[in-house]
């Protein structure tokens, strides 16, 4: 049975976003409501994907197939498995949340701002659905444009440097990916992922293919040492931009590793696994140490993101079911927690116009509810059991013991360092007596912010207490992924 759930999920936000972009002349009120309903509709149309998804099936579901550019056998081919579905829902939900959270803000050109997020949401869902390499590549690159604009137009004072750095970093990586796609096309005569999965490739070529993919995805995640664009981009990005960047965009790298780099070049993956594990461990410890000494709150959270994403790569490259699933859980959880933390920074930044930690002190006195949320999110960020932050870290540490005691040990150091940077920031910003008059006159969160933070807090708790709602989607997919990875693709001589 053919249905168009995926196309609807991709194109609804894009079309609504374009409409919003053109409706410049309408009243402020109308365009706000329009954006909010667009977000709601876009979120609504992704629900059936989860509801009607067959949890037991190993196949890609809801596939859509149309010939597109026939001479090169490029097709409009969509389909989802257990790795895509939770991320699609995360994307549409986060987009709704950022539109909702900016309902009352006085950002200039708000309709365009909302439109950019809607269009980006559709493009990112496209990345999670595409089963054709060129289609995937187009979504992947197109998605940069709205983000580029969001940072470049609505960003902070140093936004030009940050956008160019962001753009060059990511484009440079993706160009090599395109080269790899073309190589695979020349050998298979198609751009279909399924053909790529079947193609036997000699080891040297596999390594080169893997490295080209690696450049693109490692930058996106980002892995050490190609991570320096992220703190700059976050610092300059507006709150909503940071939220989407951290919650969704970084996940594209992890997802693409699972979808492309690893199953296409499994032998190279096994060969290079120790190096990537080493890079992940460096990210976890080295970046955590750097996060500890940051003076800017957003930078601190950005570095904390990199450190947490180290768990993603560590998990998925250990290639055992528990660890891979743990890495995946970490992606979802980090989506909620980093988003929540960036929202928190945004909320006080809007009142004080500074992100410097030493400009704060005793915020809890004037904003008790906000402080309660912030402490909760900081705890989730340091992996408190019962929150989603714990699940992924726990699974990865458990899985790491299979690789060796010291790998697990270094990964477990995050228990200490994660708590150190998160709670030390909480202590300096929130606790104590009010530092100055500004701190005394802060206003506590309003109802919009209550709902935004509250919904994230509930999601963090639900996933932490019932992680099986995510792993139900991924269990079967992880099995088939491990199966793909354990099958050598070296040509039989």
């Amino acid at each position, binding site marked *: 049975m053919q249905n168009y759930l995926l196309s609807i999920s991709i194109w609804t936000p894009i079309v609504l976003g374009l409409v919003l972009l053109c409706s410049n002349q309408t009243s402020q009120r109308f365009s706000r409501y329009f954006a909010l309903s667009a977000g709601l509709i876009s979120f609504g149309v992704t629900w059936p994907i989860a509801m009607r998804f067959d949890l037991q099936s190993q196949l890609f579901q809801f596939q859509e197939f149309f010939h597109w550019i026939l001479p090169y056998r490029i097709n409009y081919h969509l389909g989802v498995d257990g790795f895509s579905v939770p991320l699609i829902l995360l994307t549409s939900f986060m987009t709704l949340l950022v539109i909702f959270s900016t309902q009352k803000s006085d950002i200039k050109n708000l309709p365009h701002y909302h439109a950019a997020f809607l269009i980006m949401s559709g493009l990112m869902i496209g990345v999670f659905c595409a089963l054709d390499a060129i289609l995937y590549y187009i979504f992947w690159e197109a998605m940069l444009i709205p983000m580029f604009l969001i940072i470049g137009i609505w960003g902070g004072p140093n936004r030009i440097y940050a956008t160019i750095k962001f753009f060059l970093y990511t484009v440079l990586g993706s160009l090599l990916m395109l080269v790899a796609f073309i190589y695979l096309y020349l050998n298979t005569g198609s751009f279909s992922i399924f053909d790529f999965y079947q193609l036997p490739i000699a080891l040297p070529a596999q390594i080169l293919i893997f490295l080209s993919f690696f450049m693109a995805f490692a930058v996106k995640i980002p892995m050490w040492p190609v991570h320096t664009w992220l703190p700059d981009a976050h610092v300059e990005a507006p709150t909503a931009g940071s939220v989407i960047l951290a919650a969704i965009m970084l996940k594209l790298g992890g997802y693409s590793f699972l979808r492309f780099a690893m199953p296409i070049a499994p032998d190279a993956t096994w060969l290079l696994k120790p190096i990537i594990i080493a890079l992940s461990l460096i990210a976890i410890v080295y970046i955590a140490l750097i996060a500890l000494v940051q003076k800017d709150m957003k930078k601190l959270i950005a570095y904390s993101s990199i450190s947490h994403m180290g768990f993603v790569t560590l998990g998925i490259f250990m290639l055992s079911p528990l660890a891979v699933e743990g890495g995946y859980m970490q992606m979802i959880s980090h989506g909620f927690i980093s988003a929540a933390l960036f929202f928190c920074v945004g909320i006080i930044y809007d009142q004080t116009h500074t992100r410097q930690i030493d400009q704060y002190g005793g915020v809890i006195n004037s904003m008790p509810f906000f402080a309660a949320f912030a402490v909760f999110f900081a705890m989730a960020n340091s992996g408190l059991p019962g929150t989603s932050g714990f699940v992924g870290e726990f699974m990865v540490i458990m899985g790491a013991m299979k690789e060796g*005691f010291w790998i697990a040990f270094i990964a477990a150091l995050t228990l200490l360092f994660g708590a150190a940077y998160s709670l030390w920031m909480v202590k300096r910003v929130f606790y104590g007596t009010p530092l100055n008059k500004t701190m005394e006159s802060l206003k506590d969160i309003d109802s919009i912010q209550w709902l935004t933070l509250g919904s994230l807090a509930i999601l963090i708790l639900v996933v932490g207490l019932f992680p099986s709602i995510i792993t139900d989607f991924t269990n079967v997919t992880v099995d088939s992924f491990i199966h793909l990875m354990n099958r050598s693709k070296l040509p039989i001589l």
Partner: protein
Amino acid sequence: MQMIHIFSAAPFAPLLASIFVGLFGKYFGKGFSHTTTILGVGVAFIVACYTLYLTISGYTANLVLYEWLRSGSYTFEVGFMIDNLTALMMVVVTFVSLMVHIYTVGYMKDDPGYSRFFSYISLFTFAMLMLVMSNNFLQLFFGWEGVGLVSYLLIGFWYKKPTAIHANLKAFLVNRVGDIGLALGIALILFWFGSLDYDLIFNRAASLGGEHMMFGGTSVSIFSVICILLFIGAMGKSAQIPLHVWLPDSMEGPTPISALIHAATMVTAGIFMVARLSPLYELSDTALSFITIIGAITALSMGLMGIIQNDIKRVIAYSTLSQLGYMTVALGVSAYSVAIFHLMTHAFFKALLFLAAGSVIIGMHHDQDIRNMGNLKKYMPVTWITFLIGSVALIGTPFFSGFYSKEIIIEAAKFSSIYGSSVAYWMLLIGVFCTALYSSRLYFLVFHGQEKWRLSNTVKHGHGLNKSQYPHESQSLITTPLVLLAIPSVVIGFITIEPLLFGDFFNRAIVINHDLHQNLGEIQHHFSGAFAMGLHGFLTLPFALMILGLIVGWWMTSKATTKKTPNKFISSLKGILEQGYGFDRFYEHFLAKGIRQSGEYLWSRIDVNFIDRIMVNGTAHLVGRASKILKGLQSGYIYHYAFIMIIGLFLIMTFFIKL
């Protein structure tokens, strides 16, 4: 209704109460806050008593609440293991918690964070019950971190106090160091057993007894590694040297939680865990030795620290540390039931001491310095009597509860054959002297002697005190829990020693390899009833040491007023103690600072300077410069291009002609 629903009521009633009060307490007022939470804990207490009744009549169960996660071949569940050990812990936790709830109504009555406080302590009760009722390591870890979270929130309850918010961060981080060990131990267990379920692991443990793993180039029994790692977790939670530094500072929190969390229940979680895991610990004498030695060092060194403290709460805090050391030694010498026994008696008399100290602090108008107190027995009779009972139980006076548990620990160390137990025995004996010493010093300074508060206040205000500034007895809401805790502090040891230690109460819950570890059998052989043991208690070495300690302590307080320069040895010893053996200094100036500085270094040198400036921007500059050079080539003059073409042609020809 199934049994699991009844047992679930124990943790979830306080949880629900906590959520309600946390969300709505501010709007519904104080009465709502304390009624709801006391109701919740009351339900938990009733369920706990019922559970104890069930298990005494032979009921045990291993129940699954729900499946938390399934991944690969692993299944993680949330569930309850109901046996005598669990039931006993449940009763202790809920009883002390109930007393503290009632006490708090009086103690915190004027605090703006009234309902927040009740919400926290009910949440704590929930987490602690999840910990002790767990049937697997995952839930243990959940409860473990949960109590840590509440401890963090409660130490920093008065968030304006700089010392409080420093102490809570420190407590959380030091505990996290231990948690690294715990997490790794759990990971090793999952790796070797393929499950985190207690029952399954205990059943399979013996068959894996011979397994070894490579560790730092040598082959070590997996159980030694696992047990020591898990114990490192216990060292954090139960504040054993060198991870003890957070507990004295935790006294910055309100006094009721010092009693509940930092004396009676949470800090004993580590002790409970090792007892719960006795089937694993019995397989590794190396780990047991390690535990014995750590415990003995803690017991003695922290007892010494108690002698020089001047803050009433810190004296009791160091006493707690020292007593936790006693329990740890009991675990190390395979006397798990004795450790739990001491845990129970200690929970009662230490909670009593803390709550009585809280009463003193209120009576003294929030002055905590014992040098400013004196002769309070005249003004606070109930507090005085109950404090005295607590102290008498603590130092181990025959027939009081502390006597039975401590005496058996010392005996168990004496008869043990584990490496390090003989040294531990002597250290515990000296510890008895220290306990008596600091207890009598504290008691006499506070309740007897001169009324020094008159003096200090007169100096401050320059005039005499009016009646309202006198110390006063606390209201009945505060003194009632004191009396209720004083009763078990006196009698619980006498009543329960026989069934708990020499009966079959713990038979199913605690496993001891009696062939290897014969000390408890030896003690049982000599034991002829609680009364006889009490009488014999007057003739033992510990009793003599205790009397000596009491006398020295009394002598110290009576000499306190006469200024005399102490000799060099005493003063240098005092210097070491005042530094707390230098642990804090080392951690803060060396470790914490070192970590911060290395972060600073990595950031400024590698991230900012090397990666960003040289690699990233450097590449950009390089491209810029290269394009500047290349730009020069495109001059637009035809003869330039023609010239380059000719050179190119020439070069190509040279290479091709060669071929």
